[in-house]
Structures are given as structure tokens and as C-alpha cells.
């Protein structure tokens, strides 16, 4: 875009990068997914790597990511995104490969693939959307659902005795030697979005160094699953989700890496 671009006399200062399609998304109003898509595709655009990027989106609300991200993509079975990404990356080691997974996908049905992919240090980027529920199937309990949180399958609130503890998988991932860069973000304020974008840029830039897996968690909202307005959802997220899943870097690459 040139800064001079004008529409009906107005100067265009913000528009869709061509790494995003112009399909309207199916996401609920106020949902984090759309923002994360946009930020990721801005990074792909700014780095000029659209022709070398392959994405994997598994089952979950973002299974249709390929309708919006204008890069080559494979849809994966529930939980198997990092295995699919491993297959792609192993045969195309010079491509930028990423997965985009929900908490149910990454931390319940796909836990084994998640841990082993990072443990092998596959040179891919894992984007982890932690919204504390199963969005796509209608708001059931997820591994990351907080204690006391009501979902359709924890109608009285999640209790430890019968449902176990919320699973904070990110620090576990950071312990694996194959993990290069592990960081936790959100997209509920413009400042948070800018921070996430910086982290995603770094994560993509690290990939050709072949030093291990980059893991970017985005603590997200799910207004529909949480039965809140977008504004309430963001406030609730800050108050409750951030306590259990505090944003910040969890593991940084060794100094001098680039």
C-alpha cells in the first residue's frame, strides 16, 4: 500500500494484506481468532515469505483458517496438527511451517504429538489458542478450563475431584530441550496485539536457523462459549485467565542467536 492511496477522498491507512483473503470470517463477534490470523499474515507479508509458507489448521473453530490465510494449507485431524507439520517440514526443510491449534486440540487429544514434536525440536512454529473451552463443539470443558468455570460439560463449575486440574501446558513445553522460544500473549488490547506481532515475527525469523520449535500461546476469549459479550469476555479473561496463564516470555533462545 502506498500512503497516498485514497478511497472516496479518505486516505487509506489500514487495510488487508494480500496474505489474507477477502472472505468474511465465520468467527463470532469479538473472538480472538480473527485478530491472531491477521497478525500472523501481516508478519508473513512483511517478511515476504508467502511463497515459502505452509500452514496446518486442525479441527477446532479455526479449522477454516485456510479460507482466510492466503498461503498453502493443510487441514488436520483433531490433535494431529504437529504430526502433519512434521511431515511437511521434514520433506520441505527450507519452508516456513506453522500450526494453529486450540487448547482441546493441542493439550487434550493431541498432547502426545505436541510433546514429541517439540521434543524432537521440529523447526516449526506452533501457535496455541488457549480460550479455556471447546469453542467449535459448543462450549464444552477443555483441559485449560479454570476451576469453578461453567461449561456445558461442567455445568456446576469445574471441580478438581471429578474433572482434574486445569492443564498449564506451556511451562511443560518450555522444559523440553527441543523448545527454542516459548512465549505467552493475548490480543485484547492494541498494545497486546503489537507484542504478539513482535513475538510472531521473531518466531518466524528463528525458523531457518533450525534450532528448535517456537511455541506462541495466545490466551484468548470465547465470548460465545463463555456466554459473555466481547467486552465482558476480555475483562473476565484479564481477571481470571491471566492469573492461571500469565502472559510473558517463558523460554528465550540462548543469547546471541540469529
Amino acid at each position, binding site marked *: 500500500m502506498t500512503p497516498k492511496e485514497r478511497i472516496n477522498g479518505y486516505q487509506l491507512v489500514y487495510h488487508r494484506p494480500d496474505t489474507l483473503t477477502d472472505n468474511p470470517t465465520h468467527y463470532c463477534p469479538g473472538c480472538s481468532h480473527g485478530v491472531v490470523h491477521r497478525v500472523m499474515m501481516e508478519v508473513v507479508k512483511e517478511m515476504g515469505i*508467502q*511463497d*515459502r*509458507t*505452509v500452514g*496446518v489448521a486442525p479441527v477446532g473453530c479455526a*479449522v*477454516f483458517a*485456510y479460507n482466510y490465510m*492466503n*498461503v*498453502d*494449507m*493443510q*487441514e*488436520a*485431524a483433531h490433535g*494431529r496438527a504437529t*504430526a*502433519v*507439520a*512434521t*511431515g*511437511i*517440514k*521434514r*520433506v*520441505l526443510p527450507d*519452508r516456513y511451517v506453522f500450526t494453529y491449534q486450540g487448547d482441546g486440540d493441542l493439550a487434550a487429544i493431541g498432547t*502426545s*504429538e505436541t510433546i*514429541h514434536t517439540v521434543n524432537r525440536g521440529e523447526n516449526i512454529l506452533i501457535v496455541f489458542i488457549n480460550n479455556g473451552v471447546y469453542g467449535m463443539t459448543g462450549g464444552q470443558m477443555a483441559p485449560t478450563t479454570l476451576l469453578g468455570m461453567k461449561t456445558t460439560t461442567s455445568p456446576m463449575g469445574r471441580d478438581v475431584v471429578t474433572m482434574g486440574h486445569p492443564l498449564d501446558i506451556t511451562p511443560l513445553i518450555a522444559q523440553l530441550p527441543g523448545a527454542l522460544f516459548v512465549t505467552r500473549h493475548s490480543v485484547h488490547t492494541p498494545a497486546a496485539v503489537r507484542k504478539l506481532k513482535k513475538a510472531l515475527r521473531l518466531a518466524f525469523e528463528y525458523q531457518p536457523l533450525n534450532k528448535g520449535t517456537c511455541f506462541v500461546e495466545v490466551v484468548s476469549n470465547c465470548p460465545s462459549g463463555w456466554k459473555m459479550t466481547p467486552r465482558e469476555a476480555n475483562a473476565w479473561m484479564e481477571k481470571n485467565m491471566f492469573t492461571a496463564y500469565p502472559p510473558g516470555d517463558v523460554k528465550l533462545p540462548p543469547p546471541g542467536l540469529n
Partner: protein
Amino acid sequence: MSPVQRTTTLMKGNEALAEAALRSDMDAYFGYPITPQSEILEYLIIHGPKRGSVVLQAESEVAAINMVYGAAGAGARVMISSSSPGISLMQEGLSYIASAQIPCLVVNVQRGGPGLGTIQPAQGDYFQATKGGGHGDYRLIVLAPSSVQEMADFVPEGFRLAEKYRNPVMILSDGALGQMMESVQLPEQGSLPKSIPAWATRGKPENRERNIITSLFIDPERMEQVNIELQKKYAAVQSEARAELDRTKDAEIVLVAFGLAARICQKVVDIARERGKSVGLFRPITLYPFPTDILSRTADHAEHFLVVEMNAGQMVEDVRLAVNGRRSVDFTGRMGGIIPTPEEILQKIESLTVSTTDQALQGMP
């Protein structure tokens, strides 16, 4: 025939298959240890990487088949192998691969089941292999080797069929064929041409639309169209049906058997002929597509069919469909990893001939 004689080597079935894969320019192999096929992974991990093939031991068969989906979706020539319980774990992945129409080669070196079962050879996975196996209306193309030579030959052939039809192909073998040593002529290196498919996800250049590999077609109209496309493909695949006919022309009783069971039946035919009985052998080489027409033509002249399997009677259903009530079809088999002996089968033949004589006598005034 090439004027240059290919060298003959003595090899285990599993190793011949693995070497044939490398000679077929396989780009990647994903596996997980399970008896009786671990030699495939062990052979490839030694010889694959230095000959340009990715070889990876996955954390499970579930992960392995999804690695296949990723790598084959990126346009690579990919093989995976396992034995019965591991193949069960792959069924969801195979359904996705079949729906997304991605070529790959799957090897099942069967063992006895159900459950954890036994490590001895069996043919109990015929239904799973030929009727779909996972969810939804899809088929694998299934090849049934009955020698170490065919373990090797069916690798390039499997890749060729997979790539031609954009469909997963399965080599349905068993523990005995995987473990036995026989002399084998291996395929020439580079004899199978390779090209990068236009649909592969390798990064979107500016001048083409993005490539999407998916099995998600949420709109039922579209999903039905995809199903119709698949069914058209399976109809076209029927032309690939193959069978080997051994002394069936003048045979009164035709044995029908595949894989290892067919090897035993060859011996049975030899002995029966020595004893003056006109017995022949019909060996399906493709289990899907099942050689229905060829078998139906055999039923024009053969009086009786005896299906011999190392299971409780699975292929016999396809034989009955092909014969379509025109002739009697009997079954004999052993299960759970027991290989039937020629003598057992001969006894069954004997009982058939006795009962038909009885019938003939009953018809007398």
C-alpha cells in the same frame, strides 16, 4: 525384458520391500516398531537417509499416519508400514487421506488378532483393508503379495497406482511373507518416474491460487459431490483388477486364496493333481478392486469353489458375490496365527467330493 540380467539376492520379505522402496525413489517413510514388520523401519533407518530418504520413527502409529498426510500432501512419495494393531490406529488418518485424495503406500504385515493377538501370520484384516477400514465411503487399492518377489514388486507398483489415482494403496502382507527369506530380483533404481504434483502444498507462488488439502466439506451438497467423485474413481480403478489362475481351465474344484494361503494352495493343487483330482487355484492379486469378472468367468466352467483363508472367512463373501449363486462356494480356514496345512485342505476337498457324490447318488432313481 531388459537384456541385462538383474541380479538375484536372497532377502527377507520385509527387507526386500524396504530396499524396493528406496529403489523406487521414496522421499519419506514414517513408522513405529511392531512385530513382525520392524525390519522395515530398521532397514530404512540404516539405508534411507544416506540415499536421500527421510526416515522417522514416530511416537505412535497415529502420529506416523498424520506425518504421511503432511509429507504426501507436500508432494512427496511416502510409505508407512505397520502390523495389524498399528494399522487399526491409522484408520482415522487413512480416511482423511482418502478423502483429501493424497497418494501414499501403506504396508500391513498382518498378525493374528483380534486385540493384541499374536505375532504369528494371519489374514484377519481383509475386511478392514478392502471395505474401507475407517469412517465414510472410501476404498484403498489393496495388493496381496504371496512371495518375497512380490513384496518387492508391489512397492513400485503400489506407488504407481497411488499416484495415478491419488489414492492410498495398501500392500496386505503377513508375518510369514515378511519374515521368510527367498531369492528376489529387486527393481532398478530410478525406474519409477516422479514429478511434483500441482496440488501439493509447497508454498504459494504469486501466480497461482493457494493450494488447500482438506477433507472438510461442511456443505452437504459439496460433500456429496466429493463422494460422487470418489465413487467415479473407484469405478475406474476396477480396470486394475488382477488375479493369477493356476490350472483352473479343466478344474472341477477351484481353490480361491490370496497371499500366504495361496502359496499353500499351490502345493495342495500339486498333490491333488497327483491323486487324480482336477483341482485349480484362483489367486486374487488385487483384493480391491476384487477380480470379480475374472472369477465370474471361471465360474462358467468350474463346478465348486473352495475359499481358503487364514481367518474366519472374509474374502469368501466377495467370492460368493462374484459367483452369484451359480456354483457352490465353501470355506475352510485357520485363525489366530495358525497356518493351514496342505493335508487339512486336501481333506476338505475330499469331503466336498464325497458330499457331491452323495448328492449325485441322492438324485438317482
